[in-house]
């Protein structure tokens, strides 16, 4: 019934971080067998939707110190400074490799790689390929990975459990979506690279697949989730769908305008100073919400919004630099940005928090590594700067690939019988859930209730009362989830079963977000409280850890690594 396969290492997730890890592992040992398990074909991974660019020092007027300082300041001093230093130093190397692998970076006239301005960055250091950077990076990585025969892909395999024997991770159980068979995919180290969890919110830039699977798997295996209260709202999403309009629109000179025709980021004090539209995302999202609350927004069928005005850039520049923004605006909101401003409002975009890793991408569970949005190596602290995350996937993906290979070399294979038994138990759980008829709850109801409570309690502005309420509601939803009824009992491509398993993962992640948020009684980065509007370094300069416990999450603390940049008031 159960199928067991064995590899040197197992990577879960086929986006930028997972593919980069797989290639790095091949570079370490071209003969190693690398399993790449992904619930979709790798080129469908959500990296594909990233638009604006990837940051790395490239110009003569730039240096590592500047990129590091911008990042630590953007993080509201919650980023670990050793991690940030490592990141900025590795960044140019990784983007250069992507260049060698065929990524079609946009170019200057002299043939060098072009860079553009981005929010919170003090100079032009964002490499770009028009405004389809994630798409081009993902396809360049995926196509480059095809040359390695030793990467064994498990496409459309949904990993549901980490298999642990003797305190060490030895592989994963994964459901083959096409056949319904559960496979035990064994390796002497496992890398999580499954991305974020935006789908726990109703209004998000994230695709349907971003359900926090890797976070939940690690959480249930006893690894802490770190800094989960920090959820990034991107300032410019399309009302209704939540489709992302890239920050590059502002990097290229776009204006954010209220209903009175005022460029409020330049004219009013929102803390962004002369940066105006090029301020960091948390501040601009708050500014937009405040404008709307002050009655200076526009009203539409999908709620209130403000305008993003690109008309002064001219058609030529919009076509050359922002073709996707124009395409998306026309198709999804019926607006041509050459002639009209684009309606936008803040939208859930990125999880700063994730699986707690150290600077080497290792977790507290021996053999488990994590990279990309699923992880929190504490590069981004409480607010990520735009264009740092694509580079993060490469830098830490590569590091995870190398370090997992090194671990695998010195690790044993564990007891295959014990692992097979674990896999069989997992298969039994999945079979019991498939087409489970006994129960009174509907999956889509639980999803909409989860969305509602996450938005009311963990939005841009937060209050103790509503966060506590959300934490309680999520706990209740767990109970209701145990009572769901499903209709589809087919073994073949059962997307209802996948959605049900994803819902379990989303509830785990939502629990960590709500409880971590309720515990932080200050405002820092993306975590902004109306009832505690200031940062409080005295009491809260630490990382929040959230541990799984069947009785309810346990919270802990972890020190922030300082030492290079002294925390200061964050003003631009």
């Amino acid at each position: 019934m159960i199928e067991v396969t064995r590899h040197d290492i197992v990577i879960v997730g086929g986006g930028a971080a997972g593919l980069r890890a797989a290639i790095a592992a091949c570079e370490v040992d071209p003969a190693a067998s690398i399993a790449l398990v992904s619930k979709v074909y790798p080129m469908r991974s959500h990296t594909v939707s990233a638009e604006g660019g990837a940051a790395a020092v490239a110009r003569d007027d730039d240096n590592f110190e500047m990129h590091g300082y911008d990042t630590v300041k953007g993080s509201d001093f919650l980023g670990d400074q050793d991690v940030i230093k490592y990141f900025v130093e590795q960044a140019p190397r990784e983007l250069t490799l992507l260049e060698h692998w065929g990524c079609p970076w946009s170019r200057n006239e002299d043939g060098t790689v072009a860079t553009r301005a981005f929010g919170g960055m003090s100079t032009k250091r964002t490499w770009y390929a028009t405004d389809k950077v994630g798409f081009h990076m993902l396809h360049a990585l995926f196509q480059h990975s095809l040359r390695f025969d030793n990467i064994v892909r498990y496409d459309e395999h949904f990993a549901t459990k980490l298999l642990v024997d003797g305190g060490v991770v030895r592989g994963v159980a994964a459901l083959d979506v096409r056949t319904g068979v559960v496979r035990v995919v064994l390796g002497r180290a496992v890398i999580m690279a499954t991305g974020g969890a935006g789908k726990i919110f109703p209004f998000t830039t994230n695709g349907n697949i971003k359900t926090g699977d890797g976070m939940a798997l690690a959480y249930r295996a006893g690894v802490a989730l770190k800094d989960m209260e920090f959820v990034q709202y991107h300032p410019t999403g399309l009302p209704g769908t939540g489709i992302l309009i890239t920050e590059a629109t502002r990097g290229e000179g776009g204006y954010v305008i209220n209903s009175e025709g005022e460029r409020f980021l330049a004219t009013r004090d929102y803390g962004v100073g002369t940066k105006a539209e090029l301020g960091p995302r948390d501040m601009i999202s708050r500014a937009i919400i405040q404008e709307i609350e002050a009655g200076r927004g526009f009203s539409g069928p999908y709620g209130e919004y403000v305008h993003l005005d690109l008309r002064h850039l001219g058609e030529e520049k919009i076509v050359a630099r922002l073709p996707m923004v124009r395409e998306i605006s026309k198709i999804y909101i019926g607006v041509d940005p050459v002639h009209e401003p684009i309606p936008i409002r803040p939208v859930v975009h990125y999880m700063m928090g994730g699986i707690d890793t150290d600077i080497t991408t290792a977790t507290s569970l021996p053999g488990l590594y994590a990279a990309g949005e699923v992880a929190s190596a504490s590069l981004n602290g409480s607010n990520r700067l735009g264009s740092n995350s694509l580079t993060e996937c490469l830098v830490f993906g590569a590091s995870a690939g190398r370090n997992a290979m090194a671990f695998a070399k010195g690790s044993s294979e564990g007891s295959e019988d014990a692992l097979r038994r674990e896999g069989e138990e997992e298969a039994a759980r999945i079979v019991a859930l498939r087409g489970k008829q006994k129960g009174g709850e509907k999956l889509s109801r639980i999803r909409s209730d989860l969305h509602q409570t996450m938005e009311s309690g963990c939005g841009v502005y937060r209050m103790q009362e509503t966060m506590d309420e959300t934490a309680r509601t999520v706990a209740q939803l767990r109970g209701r989830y145990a009572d769901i009824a499903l209709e589809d009992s087919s073994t073949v491509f059962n997307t209802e079963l996948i959605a049900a398993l994803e819902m379990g993962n989303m509830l785990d992640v939502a629990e960590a977000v709500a409880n971590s948020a309720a515990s932080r009684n200050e405002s820092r980065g993306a975590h902004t409280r109306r009832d505690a509007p200031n940062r409080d370094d005295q009491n809260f300069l630490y990382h929040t850890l959230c541990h799984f416990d069947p009785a309810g999450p346990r919270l802990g603390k972890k020190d922030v690594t300082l030492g290079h940049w002294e925390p200061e008031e964050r003003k631009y």
Partner: protein
Amino acid sequence: MSDGHQKKTFVITRFDPDQDEAPRKQSYEIPVHPDWKVLDALNFIKDEIDATLSHRWSCRMAVCGSCGMMVDGEPRLTCKEALSQYGDTVDVAPLANFPVVRDLVIEADGFMEKLTHVKPWIIRAKELAVEEGPMRQSPGELEEFKQFSMCINCMLCYSACPVVANEPEFIGPAAIALGHRYSLDSRDEGAAERNKVFRGEGSVFSCSFANECSEVCPKHVDPAAAVNQAKLNAVIDWATDLVLPRGGEPPQLPDHFPFSGRYLAYTLFDLTGILYLLLGFLVLCAVWSLGSGEAVWNDMLERHRNIFYLGFHAIALVGLIFVGIRFFGFFPKAQPPRVGPVKPPPKGVILVGLYALWIGVTVCLSIVLAGGVF
């Protein structure tokens, strides 16, 4: 999400290999919102009416390539197509020309194999070290391939292609466009390798230029242009292979060249060709002089009576002897083992015969040239 003002009926092709012997149609009448895309309607049906409906989707912004289906008989990205452009009844079926896994889900493994087959990665004779930094590429060079790099692998073009329908082994529009994209990239040196692929099994020549692929491409990649450019490249590649050694590629020289004796001998052997070219030229000159009267002939002889001319002849003679010895060395090996009942003579006999023939011809020619016979 729905305002209930308008209703549409969706006729969806269903197939569950666990239960169905053949695909069947199922109708759903649902209220629709004027802003909806086709995908929104499918998700509404899945969430509210029939949870067993299976389809793929993710980004809902026309870039992940998951949600391609036949809508009213045409391959479309369902997240991109406004519902308002369709009538009261909308027919939704899985992408044509692919095996169906279930309902609206098709099997993409064949495409993945074809994609790998065209080597969609940068090929270089010598890998660059990361320390060398990014390569230079002008905006013009980028423009050469940019359009073909826009393919999102949605596979609508395979559904539209009449050739794929009849010859499933045809590499197909998207894979050819992506292979060709790398061949056009100024950083790549693998065009020759890919041309072999394009000429091989499922070759580009299967394309009958229906142009359907470019008609349905949601990203305006124009794969038909790529396929037909690839055809031309494949033809040129075939022709150069026919005419030039190594398809016109320069010879691969090992690092220790020219210090190894084996390669030195090989190079000298090849270089002697220049001597025969020059000798041939001299003979032509001599024949022309001979036909132009005695004065010109004598003049020619006079001009050639110098040290360079003699030196050239000396080198040519050495070259000839060198090539002759090498050639004679190979000659016995080149004999067929037997022709009918006749076996070739032993190696020694052939060699002695060859040298005897050579000396004999040389002696005869010398006598003729010295004027001793006639």
